[in-house]
């Protein structure tokens, strides 16, 4: 799943998957703005067949937090 999440993030945020790591966040990826963030959420929902709660959208703001949320939603 880690690689799958990285691939989605790479496609939307325009950075190579190998550059996405535990520290990846809007602070380290300049293109990660709110519009791309919403596209990222939509892409993750499609890729993993999940629905992110509206209140969680604004908290998925780093690679680890995204991974955690996707794992939790897939486990449900």
């Amino acid at each position, binding site marked *: 799943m880690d690689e799958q999440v990285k691939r989605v993030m790479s496609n939307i945020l325009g950075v190579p998957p190998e550059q996405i790591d*535990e*520290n990846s*966040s*809007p*602070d380290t990826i300049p293109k*990660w*703005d*709110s*519009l791309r*963030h*919403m*596209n990222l*959420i*939509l892409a993750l929902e499609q890729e993993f067949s999940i629905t992110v709660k*509206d*209140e969680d*959208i*604004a*908290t998925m*703001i*780093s*690679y*680890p*937090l995204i991974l*955690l949320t996707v794992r939790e939603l897939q486990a449900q």
Partner: protein
Amino acid sequence: MTPTAGTSGVDCRLARDQQEVDAARELIFRSFGPSYFEIKEIKNLQAAADPSEHRPENYVLALVDGRIAGVMHYYPQDVVIGGVTARLATLAEFCVDPAAARRFVGLRLLRRALEFICARGLPICWGAARRVMDNYYFRLGFSGVGAYCRVVVERSRQTASRASIALRPFNPEHWVAYDQAHRGTYGRTWGYIPRSEGKWRLIGELATRQLGPRFAEFGGETGPAGYVLWNDDSVLEAAFTGDPVDPVTLLAVVGRETCRSISTLALPFDHPCVHALSDAHLTLSYRRVPDAGLIGKILDREATLQLMREVFANRVVAAGLASCRLTHEGVTVTWSLSAGLRIDVAAGPRADRWLLSLLFQGVDPLDAATAGDRTWAAAFPKQYFTLSAIDGA
């Protein structure tokens, strides 16, 4: 877990006083960049036309470290839908200070603003959005309500028109006549917004100072018989106190007046000009404005359904039907006809979009009841004219 700047430290609340409103408005002006001074002038004229739209409770602020980093300006507005007046929330300006970029201030601000609007008992919010923002808004539950449609009249038909009408500039003393024309022409359309005297004077001021759409009245000895409002490439409004002017003539006259080739009328479906064109069997195309559109979100579904029931009840009586009810179970919207026939018109996420389409696109509920789950384009009577290039229907 890696800490990030994220949304921590973002506090969203309503403006508390005029000083905060002024600071919020300054951020809005700044967000327009090079157009700062022009936008400031226009927005200040707008604010003067209707100060009630600028009360502190209409400004939701996002504060970062105590400083205003984002603003959502909205205001309650009466909208006439199928003869029923509803108080809805119009979303006006929404901006975030570039200095607070990538902290997701806007996302948090918008969600909080919707909570404030809902708490004020406003069942629907709506506003204009750029196409680039589609995913942003749609993921937060907004739907396109597509009230902007364009009627494009072929150039050859315009140039063939030799007819002429005299256009005169805006006259503030004629605002009552303009309002009568506006009400008479648009009052029965769906999503009609009544205008105050202040709004009319604003239209005149913006047109005269060339800060907004151009305006001209036309007509008789005793007073204006109508007016037309246009921008660079499109007629935005055409209203008449009596019989409508042939739209081909209208476009030709405005084109001659401005020395520009204007071929587009942005009109609602049930505008008299559209009927005039359809009677003439002209070829038209309807499409949404390509780079912008209206979006809406239902904040209180029960209140929205109640509004639709009122609209529908009026239409049922007008149509001479005994009864026809709008019900919903869970997320399914159903029309129940007097013959015992039940039609599920929309379910799940589509239900909200359907209701908004009914409210804003002018699809008559009785037509909609028989249209099933067809789109408005399919429900609209094609026999009148050619429908083409319909975006996202």
